[in-house]
């Protein structure tokens, strides 16, 4: 009798509807993550994984090796910089542009919207190659600078502290449009009558922004922050096309560092898996931090 009560029609319907999504999630998300963690604890280095007598558990050796490698810390630092430019560059700029366009503070809004969003629809590899050529020591940027100083040498990529700067600039240029569209879509959901009433009551533009719009968008800001964090951690294609992580791995990021260990020279799959597990954990921690911050300080829609 109890069994019959458990399998209600509603519960069965839920399970049937959820089942495909759960299977897909386990197949492409959960299983690879768990399997990656297991591989990171082994000495597996190619060939059959199952039934291979040479594969042994070696504990956290590869994690120790990873933390002792200076190129890991260089990559992590670069990921931090990309995250910073995403969180404190792309999102505020995307919001600012969206606000200006939504409130019609400038003319030709559609034109500017298209111009800002355009980089997001171009292939990342094409963008990487394009900007690599632009910043090349023989490229247009160097030529332009030499108009002001004929002896100027393009040192942008050679100083280990500056080498990442052109990449950060391109990341800012490329992805701001995506956040513009997200904010614009959500701004359009705010009832214009609310803003109009506030203006009639004498609210300034600043007060409209801080008292009505930003609180209403706090959930969206969290979503964009999560997108920015996950996007920053998986940065690969642009850097691969633009710098390949060089010179001397000074523009490498964790995904490139993982790629290097998995596919360049002799493959070191366990180490590569250790790096990917670290990336997943870091991503989870950062997303939790964003969520806690929002729940404490965020407004309510």
């Amino acid at each position, binding site marked *: 009798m109890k069994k019959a009560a458990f399998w209600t029609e509603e519960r069965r319907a839920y399970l049937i509807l959820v089942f495909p999504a759960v299977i897909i999630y386990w197949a492409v998300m959960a299983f690879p993550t768990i399997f990656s963690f297991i591989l990171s604890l082994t000495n597996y280095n190619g060939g059959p994984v199952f039934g291979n007598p040479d594969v042994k558990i070696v504990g956290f050796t590869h994690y120790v090796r990873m933390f002792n490698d200076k190129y890991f810390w260089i990559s992590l630092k670069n990921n931090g910089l990309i995250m910073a430019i995403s969180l404190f560059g792309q999102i505020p700029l995307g919001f600012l542009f969206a606000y200006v366009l939504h409130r019609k503070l400038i003319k030709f809004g559609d034109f500017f919207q298209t111009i800002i969003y355009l980089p997001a629809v171009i292939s990342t590899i094409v963008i990487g190659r394009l900007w690599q050529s632009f910043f090349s020591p023989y490229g247009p940027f160097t030529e332009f600078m030499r108009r002001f100083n004929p002896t100027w040498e393009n040192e942008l990529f050679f100083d280990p502290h500056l080498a990442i700067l052109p990449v950060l600039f391109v990341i800012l240029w490329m992805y701001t449009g995506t956040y513009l569209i997200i904010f614009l879509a959500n701004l359009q959901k705010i009832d214009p009558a609310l803003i109009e009433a506030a203006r009639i009551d004498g609210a300034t533009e600043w007060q409209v922004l801080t008292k009505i719009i930003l609180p209403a968008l706090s959930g969206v800001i969290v979503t964009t922050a999560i997108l920015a964090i996950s996007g920053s951690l998986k940065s690969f294609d642009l850097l691969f096309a633009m710098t390949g992580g060089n010179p001397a791995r000074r523009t490498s990021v964790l995904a490139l560092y993982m790629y290097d260990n*998995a*596919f360049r020279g002799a*493959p070191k799959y366990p180490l590569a898996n250790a790096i990917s597990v670290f990336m997943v954990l870091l991503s989870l921690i950062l997303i939790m931090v964003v969520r806690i911050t929002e729940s404490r300080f965020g407004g309510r829609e």
Partner: protein
Amino acid sequence: MFKRSTVFLLTLLLIASVFVPATFAQERVTITVLNYFDLTSPGAERELQEVWHEFSNRFPHITVLREDLFLEPFHQKTEAYAAANQLPDVIYMWPGGRSTTLHTKRLVKDLRPLLGEDAKYFSEAVLAPQTAGYLAELPNTMTSSHALYVNVGLLQELGLEIPETYEDLVAMVPVLKANGLDTILMGAQDDWVIQSCLFSTIVGRLVGDKKMDEIIAGEAKFTDSEFVGALEFYGRLFADGVLHRKIMNTTYGEVNGLFAAGRAPFMIDGDWKVGNFITDTSTGEALIPVDKQDEFKMIIFPAIPGEINPNSASTVVGTGYGMSANIPAGSAKEAAAWELIKWLQSVEVQKLRLETGGTIPSRIDVTSDQLEPLVNERLGYYALIETGTYVLDSVLAGEVYLPINIGLQEIGLGLATPMEVAERTQEAYDAWKANQ
């Protein structure tokens, strides 16, 4: 009676038409190929038509499913296939270096038994055992990973001559700088380029293969004075202005146009780079037009102070195609795969590669009378090399040469000293050796 015999005859014909062709026809076979192919190279169109389409015409019973990739994507895919143990039937390979996994894990077959009597058509040097001690790929050429390309016309305009010693080269630097030119161009954003195309030759000159054999065997160290001396000399190239740090922000493809446009009188690269400068037959255009090619020469790096191997350059057996070890011996698939590998190193194909890229044939029965001046220059270049020395990434394990590759960039940028790079390489070697 007539009717019955007619029906019998027709039935017989019908049965024959079904079974006879099937009996005598060759078994249809499909083979997969991972091919290394630069679609932007001048000879790409001819290669597609005269190599791959022609093979399909000649062997209609073999269906080739080809995957073309170039540079990093190719190597990444190779490693992914190797890791999954799902190698394509035929795969483009190096005799070591980035194909080390295929060799050492014996993922490809030994081709020597399949080659059999046909070995007599190949130069014996190219059939020497490769990284894992067997013929894993059938090489298309011998290649020098180092050549100093010289724009003689540009040098003459500036009143300069081809340098014979390193000191001659250094003396040119201020003159070139005053004219707004660089001294030597390299497309060294990818970190293998300096090691393969320049440093291997420096090691050959200052360290020598004998000492390198001792280092590889663990009887000597990378921190010994000879190897550190080679790193120090490499560092001097930057201090003397012969090389500029911007080579590390110049891509491998970008440098071709820069050299052809006369941004510097010298360029260092492998001898294979000739293929990028000659005429693209599909467009009739060349980065260096035929009537200008006489102004360009290929030489080896000038004499280095303290060198023990004068006039040497790093050389290695060329690339070629290997066969997956997963193909059953004696199967129709093995026969088809071998037919393709043989075709890819046939007289027709090697002649085409000689004409379109100046690839020196590994066969001894290939000649052509349609060679552009730069291709002839490449053929003549080999006469300048008195001793061929190791290309480091073909004799060292990946774990060992990667610290050298990155270390060379770090020395150039002033981020590491030669001794630091040597120590890191020795550490990597010790770790690698401990796992063997």
